[in-house]
């Protein structure tokens, strides 16, 4: 470089340093916050209200995931410090790491076509809901509602028959623009969704086949009219969870959108709106989105549920109160051992969601202290977990998750339609060996379609085919099952003396009708996509081949599997996964014969009238207890009839900076991320 060049560089550097010197602290000054004064009224769970409910294939990429259920063990509540009534000189910024940018800040779009998990993490919980799940145990408790709704009643208005229910609302819950949150807001939101035929998660929240309209009897008394009697999935675990949007803010926007011509254009216009200063009624208000870098929510000083205390008892009782405002108790008389107690914040002045491009980068940021908690739908892998466990100032937590990985059969082909064959396959698959030995505990074996962590709906008493058997016993049993069903071999498999391995693999397996069992493929994700499922596929291939069942694991891309299985139904067996909702109405969607058409969710074509009957019953059921019995029965039925061989699930591992923050509880199905990182409960050291 020429001397002049060096000179230029020197000058430039000097100037840069000068600049650095004179403008560093611009950042600090602006944020000193007022103390908020708390008003009166009713309860609200600490965490975020849960919104959309979906089951979607378990992918690595964003899926909208809600749902939760109590972990079976709870820990005594941490002593709750005083709520944030004093303004500290230093701000408490709760920094969370996320792995992808938001795609919208518009709630309609977020529950519509933009339902990514990241939108859920950031936006979820910002809106009032009538009812919600309680923390940890996932009891169905009122939030904006002052009490439980009235029972569904048949009512005829103007010649039309409706099923109606009435809901009392808490008074004094305010939007940040000063308006009250009223029944009008609920009606407006539900009507907008219905009238614009909003897509995505909306139809499952406001189902046009059930919901007709809602009326505000007075601002704090809501009446909902259903076209037909809604089951639990439609009302208690559907519409009741609908986030309520501010009518004052959205009405003009919706009105304008409705001018946009065709319904699709109208939706587009509504989704395209970028909210500015949208009123919030949650613990935080959305304040800044620096695209690609971070999103920030600032504390809502007028948060109604601030200072409210929630107590859960070992007896199952639930109590919630806010001094001078409301008291609520349900599920038995409060008293006895407390399993959980916390007081709602928010204690953080601000929550910043910082976007990182990879899990590794996020973990480094966490280790370095740039963030306090990382939100990651897959949780931490074992290597990272091990690494973080040894780290000072970090705490690693492990929770059950809400997913399932399964092996599905195509009932349209032989011999998959043969129950004995399916049971033999299930017998041969040693889940315990794979999960605990091969996969070193990164997966948990499962036998039913409801995860164990979903306590309320989990049936522990289903047939556990093959559990506890040795390799040799499994083979012997499977061979016996096949023989009993009329299968024959040219060469029967022979097991070694010690029963540990197969000396002579089976050959020439023939079906009961005498035809040879055809070559079959197991479609499964490639190791690049998911090493766990591909490992299962490879081992299954090996075990089935040992007894002479001619299968081949076809490890391929996710879309290709979806294409073959769901779009074309051209396959033999497949391995995929579902992310599950808490309320298990998905059992109907996956296995009822009416969903067996192309692109239906019953891709295997399972068709059992007996099961269909159970499923229909469940859909119509309005009582939780009865529904539970039905779900138990369905699980037992499926575990024996085996349209899916349920394989495993992975526990969810998370880590947070315990040297900076504390949570009132960390045991929670689906992890703390399922409660969006407990933004309103997190406290600072």
């Amino acid at each position: 470089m020429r001397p002049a060049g060096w000179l230029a560089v020197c000058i430039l550097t000097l100037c840069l340093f000068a600049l650095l010197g004179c403008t560093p602290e611009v950042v600090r000054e602006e944020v000193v916050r007022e103390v908020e004064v708390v008003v009166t009224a009713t309860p609200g769970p600490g965490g975020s209200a849960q919104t959309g409910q979906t089951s979607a294939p378990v992918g690595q990429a964003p899926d909208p995931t809600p749902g939760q259920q109590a972990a079976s063990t709870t820990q005594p509540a941490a002593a709750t410090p005083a709520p944030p009534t004093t303004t500290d000189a230093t701000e408490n910024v709760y920094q969370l790491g996320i792995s992808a940018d938001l795609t919208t800040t518009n709630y309609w779009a977020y529950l519509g076509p933009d339902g990514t998990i990241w939108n859920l993490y950031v936006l979820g919980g910002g809106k009032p809901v009538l009812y919600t799940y309680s923390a940890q145990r996932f009891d169905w408790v009122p939030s904006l509602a002052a009490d439980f709704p009235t029972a569904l009643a048949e009512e005829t208005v103007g010649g039309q028959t409706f099923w109606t229910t009435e809901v009392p609302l808490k008074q004094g819950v305010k939007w940040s623009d000063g308006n009250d949150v009223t029944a009008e807001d609920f009606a407006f939101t539900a009507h907008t969704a219905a009238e614009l035929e909003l897509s995505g998660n909306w139809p499952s929240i406001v189902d046009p086949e059930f919901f007709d309209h809602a009326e505000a009897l007075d601002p704090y008394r809501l009446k909902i009219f259903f076209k037909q009697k809604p089951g639990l999935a439609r009302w208690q675990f559907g519409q009741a969870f609908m986030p309520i949007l501010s009518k004052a803010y959205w009405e003009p926007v919706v009105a304008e959108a409705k001018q946009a011509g065709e319904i699709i254009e109208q939706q587009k216009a509504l989704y395209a709106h970028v909210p500015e200063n949208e009123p919030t009624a949650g613990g935080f208000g959305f304040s800044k989105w620096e695209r690609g870098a971070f999103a920030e929510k600032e504390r809502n000083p007028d948060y109604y549920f601030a200072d409210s205390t929630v107590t859960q008892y070992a007896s199952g009782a639930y109590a919630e109160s806010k001094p001078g405002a409301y008291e609520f108790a349900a599920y038995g008389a409060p008293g006895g051992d407390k399993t959980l107690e916390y007081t709602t914040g928010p204690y953080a002045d601000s929550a910043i969601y910082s976007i990182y491009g990879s899990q590794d980068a996020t973990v480094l940021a966490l280790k370095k202290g740039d963030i306090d908690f990382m939100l990651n739908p897959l949780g931490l892998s074992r290597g990272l977990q091990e690494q973080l466990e040894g780290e000072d100032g970090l705490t690693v937590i492990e929770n059950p998750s809400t997913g399932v990985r399964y092996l599905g059969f195509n009932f349209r082909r032989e011999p998959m339609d043969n129950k004995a064959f399916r049971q033999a396959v299930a017998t041969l698959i040693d889940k315990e060996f794979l999960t605990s030995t091969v996969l070193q505990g990164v997966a948990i074996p499962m036998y039913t379609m409801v995860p164990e962590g979903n306590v309320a709906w989990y049936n522990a008493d289903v047939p556990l085919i093959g559990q506890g058997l040795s390799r040799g016993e499994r083979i012997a049993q499977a061979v016996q099952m096949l023989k009993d069903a009329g299968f024959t071999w040219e060469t029967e498999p022979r097991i070694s003396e010690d029963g540990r391995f197969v000396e002579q693999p089976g050959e020439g397996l023939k079906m009961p009708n005498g035809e040879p069992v055809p070559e079959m493929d197991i479609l499964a994700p490639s190791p690049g996509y998911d090493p766990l499922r591909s490992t299962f596929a490879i081992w299954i291939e090996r075990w089935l081949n040992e007894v002479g069942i001619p299968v081949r694991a076809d490890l391929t891309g996710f879309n290709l599997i979806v294409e073959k299985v769901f779009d074309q139904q051209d396959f033999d067996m497949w391995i995929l996964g579902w992310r599950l909702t808490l309320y298990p109405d998905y059992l109907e969607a996956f296995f009822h014969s009416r969903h067996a058409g192309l692109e239906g969710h019953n891709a295997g074509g399972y068709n059992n009238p007996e099961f269909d009957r159970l499923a229909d019953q469940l859909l119509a059921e309005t009582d939780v207890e009865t529904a539970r019995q039905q779900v138990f029965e369905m699980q037992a039925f499926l575990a024996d009839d085996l349209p899916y061989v349920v394989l495993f699930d992975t526990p969810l591992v998370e880590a947070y900076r315990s040297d900076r923050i504390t949570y009132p509880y960390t045991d929670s199905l689906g992890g703390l991320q399922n409660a969006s990182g407990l933004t309103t409960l997190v406290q600072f050291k």
Partner: protein
Amino acid sequence: MTSYLARRAGQMVLTLFLIVTLTFFLVQAQPGDYATFYSLNPDIPAEAREQIKASFGLDKPLWQQYLVHMKNTFTGNFGVSFGHYPRPVMEVLAERLPRTVVLFLSATAVSFYVGFFLGKAIAWRRGGVLEYAATISGATLFTAFTPAFALMMIWIFAFKLGWLPVGKFLDPLIWRGAEVSANHVFSYMLATAAVFIAFAFLTLLAARKLGRLGTGRMPFLVIAGGAAVIPIVWAFTGVGYLALDILRHMILPIATLTLISFAGTMLLTRNSMLETMREDYVMAARAKGLPEKVVRDRHAARNALLPVITSLVYSLIFAIDGSVIIEGVFSWPGTGMTLLEAVRSEDLPLVMGSMVFIGLFSLLAHVIVDVLYVYLDPRIRYQ
């Protein structure tokens, strides 16, 4: 000149047309479609799924989709992104483009300079220890497994040593109070760079025209002066600290990209130098009693630069390519990350849009290099 530019523009449009067509049919030929991907939710009724398809224009026959796509592309919005529905692809890309451009142009410039500098040095002292060291380390870094290497760089410099930030292009704590958006600052930075480059270019051009034989240092002092003005101007804009924050975040990715990619330029320069050094004018320069450094830099390297500059196109394309791999590791959400994200979520319009953008970028790179070449080689004139 005008006819040259016209022809060049025509060529670009044609090439672009081909790229658009190619990507469209490529994407269409893939198995599976987006609507299925997004509607595998049992809670979404069949009608809603049809509706999703309709809203994405997937219900029309292929040729209509193609025409719509063509129209969208050439009217500039590239259609509507699936994953960011209903944002137009153009908007999504426009949001991310400045980040990629700022980072990867800087990185390419730095790596080009480093490569050229080392290349001429090792050619000049052929067979030296430096040549072996630079060739082996260069080739090793060039073929190092990029994602792991980038992560290692972060681990060392950001985590262990703590000198630099762990990826990202800004620090939320600094930016949360900022009045302007990062893209504003990025575009200011780009504008500054453009103005400065234009200024430097014009100065050199003027010096060439006016100073005629000028071998003097005057033009470089003028350019240095110009460079000195930049921070002062920035200090007055009030967002200087934000730009500095971005610059701080750029150091590590630039260093990484440079280490990865300097070898290509270096080895090409070396070969070009070895050939140039045999030219008579280099011997003539030495015979004239010019100092070694002058012979090397002003004569050998200056001429060796000519073929190397053509490879700048490939360096730029390489950098854009690298962005797909590197951006994720450095949490730098530019076009590369967008492409990857779009590909993974089957956001087909965004995939096509990104590819077209990347193609456009490389076409532009060609033009820029052509212009640069004309400036550097007086023998070349527009025909």
